[in-house]
């Protein structure tokens, strides 16, 4: 091996090979123990925490020259965060990037799961701010580790039940806790609970990286993922009275957009690729040329 070859390959995807080995070993154990948080010796990345350094480290350890990368933030490929992470890997790994969910082999995400069903040949990497679902109940890591070991999840149910006592329903709408493979309670990262059912039995491998707390966890494909709930208060996802103003979709996660300073507003798909694809296929919403819109006609 020549000096030149070493220099060229050493920093593929920024991380050195030693760090990648350590992250890769953690990833394999995470896959073998679905939902369990594996500690790893995280590295400083050339971006601030909150920019998804955990997800970036996982992506850097996984990505290869044959991958096509997509990066989304709140469903959009065009936020500063998504653009900077995408450019980082385009530069350090030389891989092609895409906005299109269907064309990506590796998708790094913050706060959403794409609307389009993912495939077996795709990997979804989540950026995680707080990996420990029990942290707000118990600040000590030694204690939460014990609680997971003993499956002591009663307090988590008490917390959700307090929601019901206070609000009449479970008020948690983001980072809604799930039970993985009937064993570990897991934080799905701050995705809307609308996305929770997509994690269950997903064909793609799902990997989670928390940079500040240095934890990696995983969901193998076709793994049972159940949102915590109660018999008398079953888990339900968010629903909207509106449909997407641009593409007319009635089954997607919608963001509210303020149109002017007199309060006109519309709802649009949070997943911009999905919305664009539907519009390209001729679907139209009420704010986008579908003058005949009625809720019935949209079905």
């Amino acid at each position: 091996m020549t000096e030149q070859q070493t220099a060229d390959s050493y920093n593929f995807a920024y991380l050195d090979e030693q760090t990648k080995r350590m992250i890769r070993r953690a990833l394999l154990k995470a896959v073998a123990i679905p939902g369990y948080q594996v500690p790893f010796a995280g590295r400083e990345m050339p971006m601030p925490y909150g920019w998804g350094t955990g997800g970036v480290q996982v992506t850097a350890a996984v990505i290869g020259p044959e991958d096509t990368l997509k990066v989304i933030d709140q469903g959009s490929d065009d936020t500063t965060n998504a653009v900077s992470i995408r450019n980082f890997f385009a530069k350090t790994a030389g891989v092609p990037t895409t906005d299109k969910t269907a064309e990506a082999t590796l998708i790094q995400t913050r706060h959403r799961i794409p609307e389009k069903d993912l495939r077996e040949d795709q990997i979804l990497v989540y950026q995680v701010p707080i990996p420990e679902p029990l942290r707000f109940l118990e600040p000590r890591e030694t204690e939460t580790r014990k609680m997971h070991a003993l499956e002591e999840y009663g307090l988590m149910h008490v917390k959700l039940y307090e929601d019901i006592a206070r609000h009449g329903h479970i008020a948690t709408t983001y980072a809604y806790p799930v039970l993985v493979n009937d064993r570990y309670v897991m934080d799905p990262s701050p995705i809307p609970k609308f996305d929770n059912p997509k994690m269950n039995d997903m064909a793609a491998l799902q990997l989670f990286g928390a940079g500040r707390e240095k934890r990696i966890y995983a969901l193998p494909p076709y793994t049972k993922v159940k949102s915590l709930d109660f018999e008398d208060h079953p888990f339900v996802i968010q629903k909207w009275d509106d449909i997407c103003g641009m593409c007319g979709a009635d089954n997607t996660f919608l963001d509210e957009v303020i149109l002017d300073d007199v309060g006109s507003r519309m709802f649009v798909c949070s997943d911009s690729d999905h919305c664009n694809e539907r519009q390209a296929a001729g679907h139209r919403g009420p704010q986008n040329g579908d003058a005949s819109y009625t809720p019935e006609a949209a079905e």
Partner: protein
Amino acid sequence: MTAMHNTSPLAGFQNAAAESNHVFRAVLDAMSRPGKIVGVSDLAAPAGLNPAANAILLTLADMDTPIWLADEIATEQAINHIRFHTGAEVTSDPSRALFAIASAETAITEIAKLSSGTPEAPHQSATLILLVEDLNAAPAIQMTGPGIKTKETLGVTPLPDGFLDWAQANSCKFPCGVDVIFASPASLAALPRSSQIEVN
């Protein structure tokens, strides 16, 4: 040592980043989909190892991962090769190993000494790389669990005596347990602790 046997390390990866990524993705794919047979590149292996097992060690082992080699695998060349390329300690104590290399000749009582981790740290467990001659889709072992849509079947030959009983007991320890990678010369398949197995 005799002059008849080459005890020197063989060459490692030509391009470490690209080749180790390729091998890692193969292992990740296999571990994520228990029973799936995945091809790996044919890097020449030292006496005792086979190409797939060699590639896995060069990809994942380093000074933080003690390696245990069963007697029939622990040739002088294999030990020199592993030390040279990975910097890993080769230990004679299976209970300290994070990677263990064994074969059908290995006594199951040795494999049973591998670490399963603890309930609070189940990830601190060994990964067993089992050298085999052939992997195929014969319905010898039926597997269910995470990573498997309905049911997966895997044929593995040869296996150590008592291996399937050990593997069934291993999966009962979940979340503790040993994760197994079957390494035939040119392909690999995995049996993580999360898989339940039925033997036909």
